[in-house]
């Protein structure tokens, strides 16, 4: 099995953007599972309807780290409405593509963002369901 990561993927892997935690986060989302070998955790701060700050932590492969990193770059400073529309496809395109076997890692990035937003709304006392939608389980190993 040989596989080529793009320069962008290797760069985001080697130099992840927005790595870390936000102790005073407004929303925290964690998706994935240890059994699957993929866990993403996203911390967001929300101000005036925009993502004012974001951090991530990831347990996973090169693609998992790169998609997490790129996802945080794509949502930082953006209005929530736009962030809700972010798809894994957009993350993959921003990275100049991923090998087919690695596309599922980008799905986790999209879900981590939605999970963080859902947490934000829950903390506000707002039902996240209608806004964020359902977050399907990506991993089927238990």
């Amino acid at each position, binding site marked *: 099995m040989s596989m080529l990561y793009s320069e962008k993927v290797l760069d985001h892997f080697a130099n992840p953007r927005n790595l870390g935690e936000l102790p005073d986060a407004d929303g925290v989302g964690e998706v994935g599972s*240890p059994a699957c*070998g993929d*866990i993403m955790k996203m911390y967001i701060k929300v101000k005036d309807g925009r993502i004012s700050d974001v951090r991530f932590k990831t347990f996973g492969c090169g693609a998992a780290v790169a998609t997490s990193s790129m996802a945080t770059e794509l949502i930082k400073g953006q209005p929530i409405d736009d962030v809700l529309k972010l798809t894994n496809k957009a993350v993959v395109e921003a990275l100049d593509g991923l090998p087919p076997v690695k596309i599922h890692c980008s799905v986790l990035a999209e879900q981590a963002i939605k999970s963080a937003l859902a947490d934000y709304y829950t903390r506000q006392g707002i039902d996240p369901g209608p806004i964020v939608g359902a977050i399907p389980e990506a991993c089927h*190993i238990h």
Partner: protein
Amino acid sequence: MKAAHYVYADNAATTQISDPVFEAMLPWLKEGYGNPSSIYKKGRDAGGAVLAAREQVAACLGAEPGEVYFTSSGSESDNWAIKGVAHMMAKKGKKHIITSAFEHHAVLHTVEALKKEGFEATFLPVYEDGLVRVEDVENAIREDTALVTIMYANNEIGTIQPIPEIGAICRKKGVLFHTDAVQAIGYVDIDVGAQNIDLLSLTGHKLCAPKGVGALYIRKGIPRFPNLIDGGGQESGRRAGTENVAYIVALGKAIELTCADIEGKKAVILPMRERLIDELLKLPRTRLNGHRQKRLPGNVNISFEGIEGESLLLRLDMNGIAASSGSACTSGSLDPSHVLLAIGLIHEVAHGSLRLSINEHTTAEDIDHILDVTPRVVEFLRNMSPLWEKITTEH
């Protein structure tokens, strides 16, 4: 920053062709291009080179030259031995095969293919230490057992199986015994006669010979089982295809060199392996996979909780270290290595595994570099891991 130091620590995957092997094979790629079946001098010379290589392989195994057959690879040797013997024995009503749970896929997938044809298979457990138990082999043998096939040393965790004892049981019970010795050649003293081995697979590219050549040892006296490849009369009519003379010469030279001083090699490699294991095990929540002593001298397989293998390999690569892992991402499937699962690791621990396989060409400076880089990389990955966060806050 000091100059980039490159360390190749993945010799279990493949090896670099050594200088003497390269020099030995080169003439057979250029001037010595004759077909060994041809009657004129150029052909006879090529035939002689193949014969000489056959004698070198036989000498290393304690076999006769006539018992050695050249193939393209370890995989081909495994396929031929297992399918050939299975089909031969099926005609006598014997359709049961015994193997281990952590064989190389060249054996496992071959056995799976035979199961689809109606054969039955028993996959023996390998326990936490990565060793097959001789009693399990004995208890598994039935009236209709056609073949026992157990690898000499596991490719991922390096554990060395009790082959002579298994061979003795098989001999006693009248069952043919094959071993995939691809990883063991040159690190373990093999004597097919004394160790009761009926069939043995090996390959060149783990021994500093090129990829694309292997061999199968078939004990004289075993009834002739079907060919995998039919055609011209090469390899006594048992494996067709014009001989890959240059690569066969390379294999012969390589096996002669590696078998020349097994103890001397072990004396050089073992201290380096022990140093790697001792130092890396100092990291928290870190474990060695497979028996500490009964393993190949160059094999280190360690799991670091909380991190993932491909990321580990990529960061090691960024620091000039080549190694491999048993994580799902590197296995090409959704499951991590079947070897690590077979010794009882849970998925998340198997994902964080690292295999370093050093050999006699590895230097002390290489070990220094690995030990300088690896803990820092593990720390970096753990600091960014939500799983490590969970592990360290909950316990």
